[in-house]
């Protein structure tokens, strides 16, 4: 049937290559799609999502943590938190999966060219921003100063921290890490600020009127950051929020991800604050 592998309604086949544990409940899964999916998946823009199928469990929207590799390999950062993710975390390498997409709007990487970019990640929100970060760093000549502020609950759940530190050490990335609280750790194990992201932002000087700001994190984070960012003088059209809803179909039909009169899967998941300000239930 012609629909059998379009990746629109019927998932492409994919194979789990391996996994790399990032914390007690979160891992980075590398997934290889079938060869015929490569062209479709290569259209991925950071901030878009794919629908990952775990046979027998169901389908979940995941925003890839990096752009697809030359061989089409996707990196999906997934926390064990529900029915489907529990199944996924128990799968061995070589297991068969399904992929649809990419769906939704990504970050407006073309419009962002020439501007400084501030990325604000809270918790697992680092995953979608990591693909944007990699895009920016690989094309750093096209962008202004790149800054990442990343807040996690505590050091042991801070994801990708060695990788991010290494990127910052190479230059080209200003990195600020913060944790809500820091239990006693062996001396020299890890050091970062203690406090919430909005607090970190308070003491930060940047070219606010020119900057694009990309934010991804838990719902509470958006509400806290809105005031800080607007107060700093960032244009609401350049404050980009990646929102999370339970997208079932991914193609603007099931209505599960509705935000006011918009659909997170089709009109988002990346929205500018300007678009969201009129929608009471958005943030």
């Amino acid at each position, binding site marked *: *049937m012609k629909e*059998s592998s379009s990746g629109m*309604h019927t*998932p492409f086949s994919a194979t789990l290559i391996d996994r790399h544990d990032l914390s007690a409940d979160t891992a980075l899964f590398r997934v290889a799609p079938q060869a015929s999916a490569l062209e479709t998946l290569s259209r991925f823009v950071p901030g878009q999502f794919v629908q990952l199928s775990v046979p027998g469990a*169901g389908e979940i929207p995941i925003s890839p943590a990096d752009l697809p590799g030359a061989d089409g390999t996707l990196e999906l950062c997934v926390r064990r938190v529900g029915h489907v993710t529990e199944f996924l975390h128990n799968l061995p390498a070589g297991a068969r999966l399904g992929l649809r997409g990419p769906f939704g709007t990504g970050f407006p990487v073309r419009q962002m060219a020439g501007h400084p970019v501030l990325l604000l990640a809270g918790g697992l929100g680092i995953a979608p921003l990591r693909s944007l970060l990699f895009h920016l760093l690989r094309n750093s000549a096209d962008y202004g100063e790149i800054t990442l502020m990343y807040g996690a609950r505590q050091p042991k759940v801070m994801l990708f921290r060695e990788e991010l530190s290494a990127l910052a050490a190479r230059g080209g990335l200003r990195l600020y890490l913060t944790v809500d609280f820091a239990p006693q750790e062996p001396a020299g194990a890890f050091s970062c600020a203690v406090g919430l992201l909005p607090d970190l932002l308070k003491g930060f000087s940047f070219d606010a009127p020119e900057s694009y700001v990309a934010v991804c994190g838990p719902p509470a984070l958006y509400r806290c950051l809105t005031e800080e960012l607007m107060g700093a003088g960032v244009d609401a059209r350049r404050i980009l929020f990646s929102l999370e809803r339970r997208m079932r179909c991914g193609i*603007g039909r*099931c*209505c599960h991800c509705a935000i006011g009169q918009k659909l997170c899967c089709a009109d988002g998941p990346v929205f500018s604050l300007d678009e969201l300000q009129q929608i009471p239930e958005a943030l």
Partner: protein
Amino acid sequence: MEKRFLNQTRLGEFLETLRLFGELHAPTVSDQGVAAFAALSDSSALRLDYQRTLIPPKKYLIPFREELLHYGDGTYRQTRTDAPDIVLFGLHPCDLEGIAYLDLVFLGDRPDPCYAARRAGLTLIGISCEPDDFCFCNDSLRSAACDLFLTAREGGFQLAVLSARGEEIAAAARKLLSRGEALPQPGRTPSPITPQDPQLRFSDHPLWGKFAQRCVSCGACSVCCPTCYCFDVREYPALAGGGSRLREWDNCLFVTHGEVAGANFRATRLDRLRYRFLHKYCGFSPLDGMTSCVGCGRCKKVCPVGIDLRELLDTSPDAAAALP
């Protein structure tokens, strides 16, 4: 002049002609006394005097539960949609407009394969109606969103042919038809309700609070709405290996509808009630601005606590401001 008049006495033969084009379904009354579209095995079961069926004809296009995909050997495959040719006879204009709206949703951008297969097998024959107290259409007694439309006249029905399939049916039934007065072709019926000030009506209008105090989130208004289509997707493994992915009707009045990890964006009944009607009357991306209410009156008829949205929609901005 074309022969387009069907005498009441030839209706039985006309129904038999329709059976040549597919399985005939029409308004009937179930054993429990509920008006329902069902297969018309015996033409005497036809109830053309019905006001509205409990479940709208959307059930022919979006079954309550259907398998979308099945998987085995590590691959998902599309389930072949069982879509027999069905002639749906006796649809009121509101239900025809409801199907026309669903067509926009499911056949527009990225057509849904299951819906498309069912829709291709469906022949729609509309009939004029007499609105009752629950109806709130604009007396839109005719609709062009069908293959054939029958307008009741003295002693029979005047036919309007509205598609190539309608033409085929009229040709097959030509011996049953006689000359009659020509009626202008029905046009698309305008939406019955246009909230002039959505910002007022759908923000903090005090009537929402009054409705929300009574609403029990039963979801009946959504189940019986001819244009409510939102669905959930579930996956079930089979004991023998493989499994299937299903979609089922869902309901935005249920508390689970707005849940996300760690939060619910529509946690209160007021939020959900208002959300449903915002979608219904102000539209939804990509049909933003398009009212999908067709005025069939089912939601008002089935609501166990008597919520009548017309109270809100009829409230003028000035009167709303004066509400306590």
